[in-house]
């Protein structure tokens, strides 16, 4: 069983929901990322999605675009991101790490070289925003052979036929994008999400995590009620941007954001 499956099964047994933060590796500086990851673990997160910076993040809004720019200013390459995960693993053997990004840095490194290096560094899953399952035929088997979960997106526009096909290619969990739009937009409609996620649950046995538009304890709880986990991104990245000059203050701010979300999710436990 993969580390991701293990964590999600344990939570399910406890009637709890996964809290999954997203931050961009290397933002505000690559030397700080491991520390921020530990801070988030201390605040009760269950899985970390670590963004791999890319020069052209087409699916992201301004907040994560700027995070990529900050990280790239300090040359946060994919290799550097893998080194960050390796360092995190030296003191944390339990919290799954999912790399989330765009295909070109992986393609530039080479699929096999990346799969080897990611497994060796202690990465658990890979979510490539611009790689639908149709194009993943070459890379998905390399991940599977090394125990890396392939995580794919589902969207409001995804047809039933595709939901089934995508779930067939997925392991760990599926990521439901809560609205048509880029990261950081404030468009979430909780009732629509609830209906769609319930429907996705009918079509696959995989856990469903929901991201895009979750920015506080209230939205986290509302979405957590109908899903297996919530992904929180832009609000954390925005906090990093606002506190980049003072890392201790930044860690306090992240903790202050995540704690109420954790509590709100746990208050749902049956």
């Amino acid at each position, binding site marked *: 069983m993969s580390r991701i499956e293990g964590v999600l099964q344990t939570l399910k047994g406890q009637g709890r929901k996964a809290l999954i933060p997203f931050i961009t590796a290397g933002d505000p500086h690559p030397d700080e990322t491991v520390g921020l990851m530990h801070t988030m673990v201390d605040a009760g997160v269950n899985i970390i999605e670590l963004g791999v910076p*890319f*020069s*052209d*993040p*087409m*699916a*992201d*809004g*301004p907040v994560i*675009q700027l995070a990529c720019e900050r990280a*790239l200013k300090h040359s946060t*390459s*994919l*290799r550097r991101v893998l080194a960050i995960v390796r360092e995190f693993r030296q003191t944390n053997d339990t919290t799954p790490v999912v790399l989330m990004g*765009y*295909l*070109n*840095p*992986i*393609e*530039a*490194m080479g699929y096999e070289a990346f799969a080897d290096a990611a497994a060796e560094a202690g990465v658990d899953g890979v979510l490539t*925003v*611009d*790689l*639908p399952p*149709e*194009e993943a035929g070459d890379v998905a088997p390399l991940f599977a052979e090394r125990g890396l979960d392939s995580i*794919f*997106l*589902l*969207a*409001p*526009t*995804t*047809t039933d036929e*595709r939901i089934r096909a*995508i779930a067939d290619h997925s392991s760990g969990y599926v990521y439901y*994008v809560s609205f*048509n*739009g*880029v990261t950081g*937009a404030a468009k979430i409609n909780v009732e629509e999400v609830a209906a769609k996620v319930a429907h996705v649950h009918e079509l696959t046995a995989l856990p469903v995590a929901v991201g895009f538009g979750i920015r506080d304890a209230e939205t986290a709880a509302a979405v957590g009620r109908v899903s297996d986990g919530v992904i929180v991104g832009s609000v954390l990245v925005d906090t990093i941007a606002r506190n980049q000059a003072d890392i201790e203050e930044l860690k306090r701010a992240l903790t202050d954001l995540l704690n109420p979300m954790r509590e709100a999710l746990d208050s749902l436990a049956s």
Partner: protein
Amino acid sequence: MSVKLTEEMLTALPDARGHFGAFGGRFVSETLMDSLMTLEREYLRLKKDPEFQATFDKDLADYVGRPSPLYFAERLTRETGGAQIWLKREDLNHTGAHKVNNTIGQALLASFLGKKRIIAETGAGQHGVATATVCARLGLECHVFMGAEDVQRQSLNVYRMKLLGAQVHSVQSGSRTLKDAMNDAMRDWVTNVDDTFYIIGTVAGPHPYPLLVRDFQSVIGRETRSQSLEKTGKLPDALVACVGGGSNAIGMFYPFLTDESVQLYGVEAGGLGIETGQHAAPLCAGRPGVLHGNRTYLMEDDDGQIAATHSVSAGLDYPGVGPEHSWLKDIGRANYVSVTDDEALDAFRMLTLVEGIMPALETAHAVAYAVKLAATMDKDQMVVINISGRGDKDIHTIAQLDGIEL
């Protein structure tokens, strides 16, 4: 090295997943997949629909003014002292460039799909103007994304778009040129996918765009083929076109791909010189990667980050290229070369003074290479340059280089 192409090989490409050999495909976020699949299905149906094709042909004739002439540049030929140089006059199209062939086709598709809101990216502004134009004609809401740097250097076209009723969004992110405009157009599309049709301006982007833009632009090569036979009794020996994303080039090349005797030359922007790194020539100096929905030759660094590009011409200032060109390069069917900013500027002046035809700076790249090429060829041979657009939009840039305030 070069493969002999047959009609069967060509009709099999792109394959069902939008691949041209190792290139092309559909690398987009899940939100867009359903729209792209619907577009593909509807396009493949309409491609065979006589009514759709008849409407397209009629618009090209009566609105765009096709066929565009194939003109013998007698004086340029004499000055060059080599092969006969002929010009395919896409600059005479309504709105002044080849771009309108494609926007007519895609706007027609949008109408068939019932979409009322149109978005587009633009570099030089020619595609933006062509899109704004068809939207004005069909009463569609039009949003054009344009890099902030290009808004400045192509201010005339910005104003034209506004007069045509379009909203121009100045894009401040990244390098503030064409690639960033395309990023923001994709972001808008993801957000408004239910009611919005994205009119992509070149043969790049996810499948089926490289296919349908190529089909719409192929009228250039089809006309050139029959005009050439009619006027000279033979096919040209060489075709020369500039390559930004590659739509005017593929439109010219495609109907000649199986004619082995016809040499194809795509001219990329060499900027300050390939050796300086300050250029926009992915086929000459890049490597395969994935950007904007397709796998193709790209300019990127060792870590897979997209590199900044440079060209004096906004329409060629793009780090990628249409996937079909990447395939034509790898199988050796087409040759890809580059000319520098300075060579293009010289060619702009030359064509203007010698033939009284002022080309777009993009087009001037093709002119510069074609003149060099023709000089090495025999007098009984024939070179056709695709004059993809006219140069009015570039007069500010030229004046600035001359130190003249307009």
